């Protein structure tokens, strides 16, 4: 069906079609509508989900963990301070290898208070052990949320699917939805390896491990993440074959013979496509590299792609205060460090707190990357 939906509506609609066993959530702007609309589906009897209205995001993730340990398919949604309040439990979900899927309408963190879009909340959860997907469009958010359920259950790891707050969460787009039955056939039923409520086969979840075993268990968790790329690619491929839409983990847009490229994640990729088209029309050789998956860090693909270019601008929609460039920049430069011929890589931080990032802004960044003349090591785009 072709529908007009905001990002939040599309995420809630995907959740309805996924029909998870348990959703525990506490609403927070800008993702509030995801939970609110989903609770309507629950009230109207359109899903079989046990909806747990908890008293905080910390409790939301805690309830999700408990339900997932009982073998349920579990989802939630949050943003910003809500994700920050979940922080403790987010790590536990990953350590217990529970395939919880969370939609995040990604936004800034206080203070000062701001409700608008950037990637500060999701990137602050980078080291929690969750897979992280950043979506360019509402359609991609809808499709990715469905894929993420399958990916998470195959990988035994939780997954965060981010749509940019307000820019995607509150803007309506034309999207093509799938049939309810098609989504359910694609996902099947979760096959858990154990069930905490199975009293005939008692288990211990969340044991204390000290100097003797903690590091060994963490090593196993890290390996779990190391093995996720082929799972993501296989699920994407299957989704593409069944439904005709596919999103590469890393996409090169008009990068053939490019003298300069910008690398970035999220909705601003759409902005950059417009900028690239305009500049190409003027004969300027520029392109865009879109990174869709931040964790696992697809360093092999990044190295393969970026080693082809001489000048690269890395755009971060979050800042890791006083680090040597933005969060994505520092990872990209690490990935490229052992190349014999290193490209010039420039760090840009843009769009914090929802600050406008227009095609003209992207063009200005392109021009600077092409010229190689940059005064500051990190450029804060559009900051007065």
């Amino acid at each position, binding site marked *: 069906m072709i529908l007009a939906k905001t990002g939040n509506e599309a995420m809630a609609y995907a959740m309805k079609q996924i029909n998870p066993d348990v959703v525990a959530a506490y609403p927070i702007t800008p993702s509030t509508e995801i939970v609110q609309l989903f609770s309507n589906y629950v009230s109207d009897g359109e899903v079989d989900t046990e909806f747990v209205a908890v008293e905080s995001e910390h409790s939301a993730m805690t309830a999700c963990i408990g339900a997932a340990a009982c073998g349920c398919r579990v989802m939630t949604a949050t943003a910003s301070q809500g994700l920050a309040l979940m922080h403790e439990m987010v790590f536990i979900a990953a350590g217990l290898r*529970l395939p919880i899927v969370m939609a995040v309408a990604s936004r800034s963190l206080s203070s000062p208070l701001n409700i608008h879009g950037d990637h500060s909340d999701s990137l602050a959860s980078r080291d929690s052990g969750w897979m992280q997907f950043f979506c360019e469009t509402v359609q991609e958010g809808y499709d990715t949320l469905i894929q993420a359920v399958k990916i998470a259950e195959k990988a035994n790891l939780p997954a965060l699917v981010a749509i940019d707050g307000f820019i995607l969460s509150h803007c309506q787009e034309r999207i093509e939805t799938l049939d309810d039955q098609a989504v359910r056939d694609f996902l099947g039923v979760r096959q858990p390896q154990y069930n905490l409520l199975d009293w005939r086969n008692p288990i211990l979840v969340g044991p204390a491990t000290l100097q003797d*075993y903690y590091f060994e268990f963490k090593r196993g968790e890290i390996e779990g993440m190391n093995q996720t790329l082929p799972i993501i690619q296989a699920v994407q491929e299957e989704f593409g074959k069944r439904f005709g839409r596919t999103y590469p983990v890393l996409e090169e847009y008009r990068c053939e013979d490019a003298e300069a490229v910008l690398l970035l994640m999220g909705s601003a990729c759409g902005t950059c496509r417009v900028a690239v088209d305009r500049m190409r029309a003027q004969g300027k050789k520029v392109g865009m590299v879109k990174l869709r998956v931040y964790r696992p860090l697809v360093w092999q693909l990044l190295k393969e792609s970026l080693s082809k270019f001489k000048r690269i601008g890395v755009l971060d929609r979050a800042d890791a205060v006083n680090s040597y460039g933005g969060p994505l920049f520092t990872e990209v430069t690490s990935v490229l460090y052992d190349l014999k011929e290193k490209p010039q890589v420039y760090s840009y931080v843009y769009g914090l707190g929802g600050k406008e990032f227009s095609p003209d802004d992207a063009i200005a960044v392109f021009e600077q990357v092409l010229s190689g003349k940059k005064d500051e090591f990190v450029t804060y785009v559009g900051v007065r």
Partner: protein
Amino acid sequence: MAKAKGWRELPCGAIITDMAAVKENKTGAWRSMRPVWDKEKCKQCLMCWVYCPDSSIVVKEGKVIGINYEYCKGCGNCASICPAKAITMEKERK
């Protein structure tokens, strides 16, 4: 103790399915307060057995016969729940 396992041999998510292994970890050493059970005051309601998080209330043929100090962490739940005040918490002495 058996030889320590390497990371490849460990269960995904640190899920312990072999509950016998839990017995090896004697948590009684954590205790700073010790529950002392008074057989005379005990009404055999078994509430302490229900509430003990470490299965340290020893029950035989439906009756409390004592406390297993090898595993009791001294949380005091049993003393708190006991309607007959038959369990009191006392300081551990060295």
